[in-house]
């Protein structure tokens, strides 16, 4: 299918997606765009919420299950600054350091 060079693919850009506010968030946004594409919904996040989604992704990766969290921003679940460090300490203990 895709390995016949004569066939032509057309490239189009999705314009209606949030744009990153710093140079480092493209990976997180790439993953969020994939998630929302698979869910069939519009990207429901803002660039300012990336710290929230970073923490959430870290938890999902350690838990090994993407279904246990709703991937929509919730201000009530925004952790404070200390939570990032406590999460990493947890990771470190899991990693047998």
């Amino acid at each position: 299918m895709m390995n016949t060079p004569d066939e032509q693919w057309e490239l189009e850009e999705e314009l209606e997606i949030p744009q990153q506010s710093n140079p480092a968030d493209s990976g997180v946004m790439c993953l969020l765009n994939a998630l929302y594409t698979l869910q069939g919904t519009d990207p429901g996040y803002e660039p300012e919420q990336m710290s929230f989604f970073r923490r959430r992704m870290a938890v999902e990766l350690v838990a090994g299950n993407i279904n246990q969290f709703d991937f929509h921003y919730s201000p009530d679940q925004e952790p404070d600054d200390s939570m990032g460090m406590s999460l990493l300490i947890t990771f470190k203990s899991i990693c047998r350091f």
Partner: protein
Amino acid sequence: MPFLAGEPTSAGHFTLHFTLPPEYLIGDLWELYFQMPEQEFWAVDGLVTYDDLSTLAPDGARLNTTGRLASGFVSIGIIDGFFRLLNMAFPRYPYIAPSAMRAYVSQGIIANISGDRINLFAEDVSQLLVPMFVGNNHWILAVCNAKTMRIRVYDSYEALKNDKQRYIEQLRLVYA
């Protein structure tokens, strides 16, 4: 021969031609991959290290195991690990892993070598999700619709809009 090449059309779109790497090259890369040193942490069925996780730190300035500061740019291990989770949650939508050594399209079969999806025929696949590493530390998402033969690009940095030709050149460099 480039894996992915493109050229602009008058309509403002880009026509892409896929030329896949030969299987022996994939095999060689696969062997190389397994010669990597043992990693510290295994999540899902892939490799996610503590250093990978440190790149998810919100402030982007946590010490990783090498004593250097994590830059905040998400590592390839995070992209790969999260896409594995997506693959488990949405099993009808296959993806091509960011590293070409782990998945490839050949003889009409989409093979994810690291998983159990090796018998999925390309004709049965409507969408491929391809996270792509473009330029310096920039990730975009390409959603390939096999039926309409369109590749929809989700770029959070407007690279296409800003400098299309440079963007295509970067694609060529990545997949050359």
